[in-house]
């Protein structure tokens, strides 16, 4: 049930376009700081390309480290967009409305960030076009289509394209609003972007049909992206603990878990930064919190399956990996401590925080829970990938652990700065809460008298 008042359209425009038409005083300093971090990481990447991967902490046992962990993490974050806009749109959940745009935009930016990771992680990144873009007809060299690493760019680029379309289609009516409220060269840009939008019934019908169709078509892409990312690991037979059939759904659910948490945190930040209390309301955060309890529990189920059937086989090599993960640091590495921390902050702590309604409506507690989920999900990927490699070999007697060095840490930190910076810059030019969607919700909203209570009700289109 919705809370809050129905606001006049003029006020919605005024409030939600505030981020574009005015610049808050904190805006440029924050963007500059984030930009400096990104710049430092860019220079580091330059050094790394110039001198080679030797400057990272990778070694001959652990050849996939922080970069791949970070890649999977950001791909995971990107799953929030479709979860919130497509699935909840098809399910006609009213409380989705203020969250959709931020989630979709986060999808696009996190996908872009994620794609940087496997590229800079390769030994010779300047040759990556071989594989990411099959362009080289002349020499008859077509990339091998069998490896999951080639399925990756196909899935991710499809997802990126369709998400961008999805955002653009949803933005067209809002572009028209902006076109009518700006002057000078921004007006010219918004006029082009609005593509002649007048808001007539035919245009609305087309826009709605396109939105519904894209929602339905993007769903298989959404599932396939993280499945394929999981198959980067699931297809590998030589590393025990990776070759598990449950990986695909496990990764998808985990992605939704971390992605939706990230969106909740982003929404709380936006609400605070731009004063959108009337739009991003407690009931929205509350509903997202309830959704997250379900998603988190599903994720936990898959985690348990993965572990139980890892041990189930009682195969020596696999048990060795599991021992490395769960038993006290026999090899000088406290993976077991990290394991406990990770399960605690990814499942138990946040779910306990989400259970009471009052806590779900407390923005501080919600922020803490969502940050804890995302730290935990980052750790999850690390603990899934690295122990298996540190102990991968069937034959050799040397095991080796992995300790990241400063270039990796800096680049990983900079990806967070990069996405935040892009989100802020986006909010500067495009509305991050969809105007038309909020207005639509207000139009479809009505009241119903039941007994002595007056309840909000919704017009249903079918």
């Amino acid at each position, binding site marked *: 049930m919705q809370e809050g008042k129905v606001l006049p359209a003029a006020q919605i425009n005024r409030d939600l376009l505030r981020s574009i038409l005015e610049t808050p005083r904190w805006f440029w300093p924050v963007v500059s700081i984030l930009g400096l971090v990104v710049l430092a990481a860019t220079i580091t990447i330059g050094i790394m390309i110039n001198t080679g991967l030797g400057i990272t902490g990778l070694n001959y046992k652990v050849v996939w480290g922080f970069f791949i962990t970070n890649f999977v993490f950001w791909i995971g974050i990107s799953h929030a967009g479709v979860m919130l806009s497509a699935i909840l749109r098809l399910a006609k959940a009213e409380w989705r409305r203020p969250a959709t745009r931020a989630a979709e935009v986060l999808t696009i930016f996190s996908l872009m960030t994620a794609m940087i990771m496997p590229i800079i992680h390769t030994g010779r990144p300047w040759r990556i076009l071989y594989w990411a873009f099959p362009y080289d007809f002349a020499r008859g060299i077509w990339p091998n289509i069998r490896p999951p690493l080639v399925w990756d760019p196909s899935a991710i680029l499809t997802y990126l394209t369709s998400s961008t379309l999805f955002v653009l289609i949803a933005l067209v009516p809002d572009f028209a609003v902006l076109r009518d409220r700006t002057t000078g060269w921004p007006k010219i840009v918004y006029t082009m972007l609005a593509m002649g939008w007048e808001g007539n019934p035919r245009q609305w019908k087309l826009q709605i049909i396109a939105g519904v169709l894209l929602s339905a078509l993007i769903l298989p892409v959404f599932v396939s992206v993280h499945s394929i990312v999981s*198959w980067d690991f699931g297809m590998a037979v030589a590393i025990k603990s990776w070759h598990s*059939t449950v*990986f695909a759904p496990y990764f998808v659910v985990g992605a939704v878990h971390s992605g939706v948490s990230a969106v909740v945190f982003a929404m709380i930040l936006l609400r605070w930064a731009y004063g959108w209390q009337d739009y991003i309301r407690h009931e929205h955060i509350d509903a997202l919190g309830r959704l997250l309890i379900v998603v988190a529990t599903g994720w936990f189920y898959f985690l348990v399956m993965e572990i139980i059937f890892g041990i189930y086989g009682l195969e020596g090599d696999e048990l060795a990996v599991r021992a490395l993960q769960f038993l006290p640091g026999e090899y000088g590495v406290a993976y077991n401590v990290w394991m406990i921390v990770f399960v605690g902050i990814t499942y138990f702590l946040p779910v306990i925080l989400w259970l009471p309604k009052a806590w779900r409506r407390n923005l501080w507690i919600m922020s803490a829970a969502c940050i804890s989920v995302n730290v935990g999900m980052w750790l999850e990927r690390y603990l899934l990938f690295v122990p298996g490699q540190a102990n991968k070999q069937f034959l050799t007697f040397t095991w080796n652990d992995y300790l990241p060095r400063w270039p990796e840490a800096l680049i990983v930190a900079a990806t967070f700065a990069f996405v935040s910076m892009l989100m802020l810059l986006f909010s500067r030019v495009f509305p991050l809460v969809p105007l038309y969607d909020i207005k639509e919700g207000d139009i479809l909203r009505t009241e119903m008298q039941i007994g002595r209570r007056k309840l909000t*009700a919704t017009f*249903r289109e079918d």
Partner: protein
Amino acid sequence: MASETQAHPPADHGHDAHGHDAHEHGHFGPEMWVIPEASGLVAEVNEKQRTTPGIFRMVLYAGAALTILGIVGFVLKAMTAGFSDHRAWGFYVATFAFVFTLTASAPLAACAFRFTKSHWRRPLSRIAEIFSLVSIVNILLFIPALIALPDIGVMTEGGEQMVRRSIWFQELVNPSGWLLAGMVGLSFCSVAILWLAALPDMAQSRHLVTGFRASLYGKLAGGWYGTKKQWQVQKGGLAILGALYFMMVVFVQFLVVSDFAMAMIPGWKDSILPPFYTVISFQGGLAAILLVAYAMRRWGGYRDMIGQAPFWAASKVLLGLTLLHTYHLFAFFITYWYGRLEVEQAILNYLMFDSYIGIFWAQLFFTFFIPFPILVSNHARREGWGAPLAAIFIVIGLMLWHIRIFAAAFAAAPAELGGLYYLPSNAFSFPAMLLPVPGATFPDLWDIFMILGGVGIVLLVFRIGMMLLPPLSLWEMKEGSMYQRVDTLIRGRYLVLTKPE
């Protein structure tokens, strides 16, 4: 805006009289479905229940006949094969698992969509909950399956230990007690859900019914007066029991499919199987509910009360579950096929491409290639026949799935090892494998009797449940008619719904 507070269609309208104006506006959807007025609902449903159409009576008789056939088959099988060789009981276990799969998860549909406050679930809830009664049958069916299940470790004459892998990790030699406790707990929980959900309805109907049902309702719902406190307890209880039941179903399904299928095939280590089993069980449960709903709507006279909208909405969920089924199948297949380990090749050959290739493809067609085009068609979904048609194929396909997994698993282990396989005393060394790949197993006459009996007993128990309990969730329908209104927005007439916390 609230010009009409409660706009109900006239009581005497024909089947196609209402919702006309709305249909012109709705772009894809079905005609507008308005729950009939609440005042006459209880009497009307009771009247419909009394005048049972002949086809429903036929279901009862057919169910009874098939059940007897199944018992005959079971007795003869037990006499001819005995319980010492588990390989004789593959089809029996497949039948049990099939019945369990469909009926254990059907009540979840009621809980889940009550949790999401879906308006369209209201007429389907009780159908889903009546499947709880079958859970008692599940326990009965489960006991012989447990007896047939080989122990985890057996000492042979030579003093060597024959073991199978299991999720119990050799610690508990006999997990049967735990399995049985899980099944009984599941049954208890689902019957509690049924009782709690039917409580208000039985209380409303207790003065309208006669004979056995009157005394039954009096006993079961005697203390219900509909006070605010009672409603709070009932709704809270349903929510908590629903969540508990959800977790229990998932857990017991994990136990059943790991112990009765995965552990029986040497070397099969497949972490997606329990989630896969849970997904197909949701798919099967929803399909079964939709089949019953269609029969009630078509032959039982509940045309207005059930409407097209529940099918329209439920078929989308069914489409999602069908896609998820295929997705899980593919995730399993691609990992094994790409991995190319010896044991993986053997298991793929056994379950998919060699021994059971016919059943595999038939199952894939029944659970995906046929239902998918039906379910993506807006027309088929809208008209209310698409989902039940797809559901028939899905139910048949799931029967084949159970034969492919459970019957195959029970027939898998090499004969020379007495049906179990040998794992060296040091379990850390080389894992046992399904090599060489055995051929397919075929049912004998008693197996076929037992499969038919399994279907029959579900029909029988379900039909008895429909006769004893109000077949429509009256309080949810009443609630629905209270929370709905037809109203004008701009130029169109639309349904207005509210969903209080």
